[in-house]
């Protein structure tokens, strides 16, 4: 009762809470925060110690090169998860990019740069269609992109009658295909700048740009806001649809780049290209949300998730494990990440509608 009225005249600044956690709580916090990175380093050390081939200096770059496709698709997934959605069509879009770029070069004998431009345009268009379905037609994200996944998978095979495209093949009109996947195009995968492979550079550039957009610009800020509470963002006078749509266009753009790297890697079209990419992209983006206990989709987490998965896969194949073990290993990595964020973390994590991931504490509600 002796307190002077103070709240009326000046802001009351509370002291920041003191860190007086018991040791166990702090240890748990540290495990949640750094556990995933520790596992990555430990596995790397283990494989480096047991597998001589793993120790070579080029190995890390080779692994990053392998990781680039999944990482770039995962980056697109990160964008769509940021706005509270998920793009189920990324794998199919990458597959479409593979078929289209092969077709442009092999069937129509056009240049590598034409193929690149066309494929990126197609990626943007598919992204726009996804955005249209989700924003204008109000189809839920998962369902719209799932439908589009099937549409694209099939549509990409129509002009080639369901065949993989390779140079010298007989086209549907009976002629022999005149072109091939050109050597300059294949530099997208096989080229090096100094010791660093081109796809690694593309990947790093895209991740830096993606990180910058999401964490430093107003567009990224609004995307995260849309994922956190679209109603509140709408009532703040922001055009929510624009930003949700933008995420799918970005995802389409990134999927087409991933497709370009794929076709440059295999040197021909492939009807099955991209079919396994979707789940990997989802997995790495999910792993990314739990890295450092950030609790929301973020580019660096996605990249780290990709690197961990590639370390596991490479290490296992060097140990002579069969391919099917690799899938199990990938699944276990994802499971481990999910255990970190859902079970070990003291902050409960939850999926709000569809796939948006938000962490919140139910404290302070006295």
């Amino acid at each position, binding site marked *: 009762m002796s307190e002077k009225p103070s709240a009326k005249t000046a*802001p009351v600044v509370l002291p*920041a*809470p003191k860190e007086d956690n018991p040791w166990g709580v702090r240890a748990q916090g540290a495990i949640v925060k750094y556990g995933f990175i520790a596992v990555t380093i430990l596995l790397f050390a283990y494989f480096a110690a047991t597998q001589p081939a793993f120790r070579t200096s080029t190995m890390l770059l080779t692994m990053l090169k392998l990781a680039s496709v999944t990482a770039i698709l995962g980056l697109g997934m990160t964008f769509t998860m940021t706005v509270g959605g998920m793009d189920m069509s990324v794998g199919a879009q990458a597959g479409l990019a593979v078929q289209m770029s092969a077709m442009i070069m092999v069937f129509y004998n056009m240049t590598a740069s034409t193929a690149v431009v066309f494929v990126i345009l197609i990626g943007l268009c598919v992204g726009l269609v996804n955005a249209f379905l989700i924003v204008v037609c109000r189809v839920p994200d998962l369902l719209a992109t799932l439908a589009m996944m099937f549409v694209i998978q099939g549509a990409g095979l129509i002009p080639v009658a369901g065949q993989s495209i390779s140079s010298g093949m007989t086209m549907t009109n009976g002629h022999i295909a005149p072109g091939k996947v050109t050597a300059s195009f294949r530099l997208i995968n096989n080229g090096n700048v100094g010791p660093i492979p081109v796809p690694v550079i593309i990947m790093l550039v895209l991740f830096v740009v993606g990180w910058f957009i999401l964490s430093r610009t*107003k567009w990224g800020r*609004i995307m995260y806001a849309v994922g956190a509470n679209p109603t*509140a963002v709408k009532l703040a*006078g922001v*055009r929510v649809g624009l930003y949700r749509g933008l995420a799918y266009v970005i995802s389409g753009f990134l999927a087409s780049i991933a497709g370009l790297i794929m076709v440059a890697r295999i040197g021909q079209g492939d009807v099955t290209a991209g079919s396994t990419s979707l789940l990997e992209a989802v997995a790495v983006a999910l792993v990314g949300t739990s890295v450092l206990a950030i609790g929301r989709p973020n580019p660096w987490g996605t990249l780290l998730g990709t690197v961990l998965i590639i370390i596991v896969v490479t290490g296992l194949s060097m140990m002579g494990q069969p391919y099917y073990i690799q899938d199990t290993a990938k699944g276990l990595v994802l499971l481990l990440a999910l255990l970190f964020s859902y079970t070990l973390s003291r902050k409960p994590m939850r999926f709000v509608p569809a796939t948006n991931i938000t962490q919140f504490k139910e404290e302070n509600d*006295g």
Partner: protein
Amino acid sequence: MSTEAESGYALELRGITKSFGRNSVLKDVSLSLKPGRIMALLGANGAGKSTLIKILAGAYQRDAGEILVSGAEVDIHDPMSAAAQGIQTVHQRIDQSVVPGMTVAENFLFEDIVKGTAPKVSSIGQLVKLAKPVAATLDLDWPDKKMRSDVFELGTADTQLMLLARALVEHPKVLVLDEPTSALSQAEVERLFDVIRRLRSEGMAILYVSHHLSEIVTLADDLAVLRDGRVEDRQQAPLDMDRAVRSMLSQDVSMEAAAVTEQRGDKVAIELHGVQLLKRSTPVDLELRYGEVTGIIGLLGAGKSELARSIFGVDPLRAGSMTLNGQPYRPTNAHHGVQNGIYLVPEDRAKEAMLPKWTVSHTSSLPFISRFSPAGVIDFKREKVHGQGILTDFAVVSTGPDQRVDALSGGNQQKVVVGRWMSGDPRIILLDEPFRGVDIGARHDLSAKARQAAKDGACVVVLSSDIEEIEEVADRVLVLVEGHFVLDRYTTEVDRDTIVASMSEEKANV
């Protein structure tokens, strides 16, 4: 251990303590409720009321302390055990207590269904028959058709009554009511009070939690005030509300609203022509002026939010047109509203204005993020200065602009939400139920800010169902009943009785 004869209390709490992590919410709280009396529980936001209620309801476990029912110590560890000990709670958030997709009858019988005492296999007709006696505890004589409909089709008031009936069928010794009137109309409140008084005469002990002082004065026999997790004041009738408010706030806040120095504006901001607010309502015309605070009083469902949302642009008009500064104005989304300097502080703060985990500075910069982002890149320093500015301006209790908004108390959350719009030079600002879940100190601060904005030339519109709140803030009073205006006066020209009369008269005519 004391016996019932000795103590004569229906419910005793002794030294209840509860903390969440480092945050100590209840500190040694002791309360005693006598049968046949109503005890009001008062407290500012964050005082620990909700936590105490949840402990009584079995939703939370106390860290220390004893709970005694009729003199015998009881163990309450989940909602079932609370009910078994004769403690029933009707929570404030009714949407969390009903099961959507199920019929009204099934919701009446929900406890039985959960416990497995309801027939495993039964027709809806049978369930309706079983539900009728439950409804009868409150003399609710609802037709079969209503009992068979989805619980979502019940109005808020009926849902509230249903939940109360569900609590009463267990013949509790102690009934806890958490803000039971927040969604009710005046007539419904009267009806509820009659029920509560009847229950009191039947010997039930009632813990009544409310922000509305007038309700407490009319209803309560005893009173307890919580502040910062401690019982700060205990009273028996006759109640000294001035003292209660003082102990609630620990500062000298007069109970009488500071007399409003009337401001009258003469320039018209926005005009509505033939606007239809509700599905079944006649078109209305309205003129809102710059330089004054317009208070719009209306009960739930009178069309307040519809009016505010249409002007803001988030919902389209059913019929009619608007002019803004004399020019035709047809907003199709909230973006238009914001671009024209028209801002809305929505009714439901948590759902419509806040972002989980977001900090003060991020939340407050969101509508105007472009101003802080030259070439799209956010200037974090300027953003933080802006957030700090709002904290200072509105005297927000916080650890700084990096604190999460959802960690603040209700009043402080609302200050941040209102403050962010006030920082954006509003031309027209619509405040929909801005004082809901806000303590009296914060309410005074927010009122003062609203009046200041009007003085600075803005058109300020406050929409509320509470006459007291409107009298405190508004220059001009409009009464909205079922989608049309029944009264339009300056506050100084009209007294409370006239306002109340205008609201009920119209009800009778409809």
